[in-house]
């Protein structure tokens, strides 16, 4: 089973349906059902909204998620769900989970903010998550802040938006994507499928 954490940030209809297209056992997990995370082969941390709201809403899940990450369960953070994995964000005052060293900063005023629309990826490193994905593939982004991992080697792909924006990060079993695979049509579903393969081992 792959768990989608439902911590009250935004509607999970699309990610659930998207995952359902490529995998038959997605499960929305609310706090009440958190014990079931122990059975998860993979975990998705979605989310839209402001950083502080996300961190606060996520608190009841933090311990369980960190424990699962340490137990080598594959985890995929999407958009703010990826930003949450870092230490802090310029958008708010709350502390992130700190699973990835680095911070989240605002996009500069020299570009239109939010960064909204389809951007092609510039893969930098091999990763199973990007199997079959090239620099000709576009994904849907919508965000005003972007992740700056302290260790650049964590950046698997970036995009060129006038500035370099971190698009995909990875550290061991932990993955993050700034874009929305569930809104990126066929290529997005392909990426979700890659994540399913990672979860299946």
């Amino acid at each position: 089973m792959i768990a989608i954490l439902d911590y009250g940030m935004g509607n999970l209809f699309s990610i659930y349906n998207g995952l359902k297209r490529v995998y038959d056992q997605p499960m929305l997990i609310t706090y009440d059902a958190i014990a079931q995370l122990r059975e998860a082969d993979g975990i998705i941390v979605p989310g839209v909204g402001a950083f502080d709201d996300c961190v606060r809403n996520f608190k009841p899940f933090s311990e369980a998620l960190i424990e699962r990450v340490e137990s080598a369960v594959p985890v995929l953070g999407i958009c703010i769900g990826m930003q949450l994995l870092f230490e802090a964000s310029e958008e708010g005052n709350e502390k992130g989970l700190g699973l990835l060293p680095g911070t989240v900063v605002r996009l500069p005023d020299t570009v239109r903010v939010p960064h909204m629309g389809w951007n092609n990826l510039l893969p930098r490193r091999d990763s199973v998550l990007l199997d079959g994905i090239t620099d000709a593939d576009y994904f849907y982004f919508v965000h005003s802040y972007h992740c700056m991992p302290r260790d650049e080697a964590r950046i698997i792909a970036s995009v060129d938006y006038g500035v370099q924006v971190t698009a995909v990060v990875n550290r061991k079993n932990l993955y993050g994507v700034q874009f929305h695979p569930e809104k990126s049509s066929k290529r997005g579903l392909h990426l979700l499928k890659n994540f399913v393969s990672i979860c299946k081992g």
Partner: protein
Amino acid sequence: MLAKRIIPCLDCDFGVPEGRVVKGIEFRRITYAGIPWELAAEYDEQGADELVFLDITASHERRETMAQVIEKTASNVFIPLTVGGGILNLEDARKMFNAGADKVSVNTAAIMNPELVNELARRFGSQACVVAIDAKRRYLRSEEEALRAINEQREIVDTKEGKCWFECSFYGGRKFAGFDALKWTKEVAGRGAGEILLTSMDRDGTKDGFDLELTAAVCERVNIPVIASGGCGSPVHIKEVFEFTDASAALAASIFHYKEYTVEEVKRYLKENGILVR
């Protein structure tokens, strides 16, 4: 690089069960292009970057039908969906988000209550809050008109057809209230809107092409993405709006509904002309 977006617009009539996408009016009779979610899937298949659903009936009773249409679309179509027409408050917006919409677009409700833009942005995030602005040229044909415009602190644009300011219309183009559209764009951006859906009321329905001067004027004034709308009659118009303005997206309805061009054909044409599309 960020690709320019091509957005088919689905004007929906919910007076019919399941809703219908309005194609146009022929011999005084409304004609339909199809069932919203079927058309949505077709446009996705053709490579549409996003879809906008507008409830042209915008009546409260039919909001449920809109939610069902969105839900049905979102379970099958994995690109961003925007819903507009008759979103009056946070509750209406929430219903649409729960049904699977990614953004809501507000127009009249925001003019009546600008604080709604702040509330939407705060509650659902700027990225989910689109402000639709319908703008009409008001030419300054005499010295008297020019003086009045200056006194009223209008933002005046020098167009090929002469100096003008732009007035906001609302209630679907039926009402005007002396609102300066260019000032309004800056205000809504300041209030947290994540995007502007800009429609030229002079061009809407004409197929004469986008109002390039209006679009450029808005793009210069705000730092959020702008969707150009109103007047698209051919792929050339889309090319023009991307060449002459910094619009992030172009919205069109009839060229797609009448199957004059597929999204794919439009994109092929744009690519051949050096415009970056997905």
